[in-house]
């Protein structure tokens, strides 16, 4: 049997689908250029620069007397942030008696050897200290929970 109408309808619908798809990509493609993920190399550089600036602030705090009350500095016990082991946190800290974060340990050091006041966990100083510590331990193997 011959079904010319059906064939004609199919080719018509193919054209329609083709047009719709083109319009879809035209609209969303344009929109994504304006509003979508705008990653490129220059942005990566910008974000890294922001991170390194925070590291530099952390380095200053780590080597200065301003965190504590007795002029003692973090770097006196931890040159280049050694023996901080950020890659092992969170971990069970025997002396605190629970699984603890690096920020809790930083505050312990500020309160005890440094005789200072603890920082809020979202304090930019705390974030800067954490950034410096993490940066100095770059390339260390991640070993969560290891004491």
């Amino acid at each position, binding site marked *: 049997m011959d079904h010319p109408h059906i064939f004609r309808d199919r080719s018509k619908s193919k054209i329609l689908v083709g047009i719709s798809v083109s319009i879809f990509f035209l609209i969303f493609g344009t929109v994504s250029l304006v509003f979508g993920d705008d990653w490129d190399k220059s942005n990566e550089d910008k974000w890294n620069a922001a991170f390194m600036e925070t590291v530099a602030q952390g380095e200053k705090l780590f080597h200065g007397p301003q965190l504590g009350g*007795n*002029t003692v500095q973090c770097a006196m*016990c931890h*040159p*280049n942030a*050694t023996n901080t082991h950020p890659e092992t946190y969170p971990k069970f800290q025997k*002396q605190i008696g629970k699984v603890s974060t690096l920020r809790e340990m930083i505050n312990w050091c500020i309160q005890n050897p440094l005789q200072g006041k603890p920082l809020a966990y979202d304090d930019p100083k705390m974030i800067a200290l954490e950034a410096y510590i993490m940066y100095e331990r770059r*390339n260390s193997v991640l070993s969560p929970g290891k*004491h």
Partner: protein
Amino acid sequence: MEEGKLSRKDFLRRTGGLLAASIVPMSLVEIACGGRGKGTHEKFTFAFISDPHLTHIKGTNFVRNFDSGLNKAIETVNLMFPRPDFVVFGGDLAQLGKREELDHGMELLSKLKVPVKYVIGEHDYYLDLGNYWQDKISKLNYSFDHKGVHFVVLNSILTYDTWIKRWKTPEERMNEMARLDNPNGSPFMVGDDQITWLKKDLENVKSGTPLVVLSHSPLYKIYKPWNFWTDDAETIQSILSRFDNVTVFHGHVHQVLYNQIKNISFYALMSTAWPWPYPESYTQSPNYIPKMTVFMNRQDPFHERDGTGWAFVNMDNAREEMHYKLWENKDRIVKYDDSAGHPVDSEYQKPESRILPQTHY
């Protein structure tokens, strides 16, 4: 207090002292080991206290924790029986070379019941380039003989003039030198003047005489970024090469560390203030930590005195025996082993003999 009467405080102090003295394992003093030394000398011991880093805060306030470390060392040395012939102070009495800190340190050290031989550290030196130290405390380099052993004290923390002139004020210079991980740091050295002096001092010393060199920085090269380093170490080593029995004791590194380079045995001291990590825990630059060293335990930050301590050295007829007294950990005895040809830890040298915390981080 009236004469002949004991106050309650004094009574407690004295009986406490007796009790503590009975705990210190002094029988070890009599242990003799075989030796390569040709010289003969009387047996004696000397104690070693190093790196208290007393830190001035304001007025009459000092960092309590560092004061208590030095006081504890002084009290324990005073309890030694038999009493050591003298104490070697290994340097870094002050944190920033201030007169307040040096005066305070001398006041605390005046409680020692034996004479003190002083070695200067970089923290004592870089504020006024050693002036106050020389006026009030000690010469920067000197030598003495004791019971057949020749002792030489070197000021090993000098550095290049170009670096010294780089800083605007003495305070700035001191602060830069006080930062261990300073990328602007400058390596230590003994320097030409002292090398000339050393050669002359050793001219009339026979090669069989046991020779002990006391310095603040290690007279070999370990890790430059933290200044565990003496730039002209090889020159010093070559001057010492004709002696049969040479031992170098040094401070600065705040940890148990020993090494053998040709004819010279090296032993480091812990600090009474705080311990430092071993440089190999920071992998960004190559380090030359002696392979033979068994690391001391990583300290527990929740115990203030962990990883700190003092030492005494037993000089018998043959060789030195280094007794590391770690307050919150088991003592370590490291001594020269003739068959191995280098210092060996009497208990932990073999990997299978080490207890778990010797390797945990």
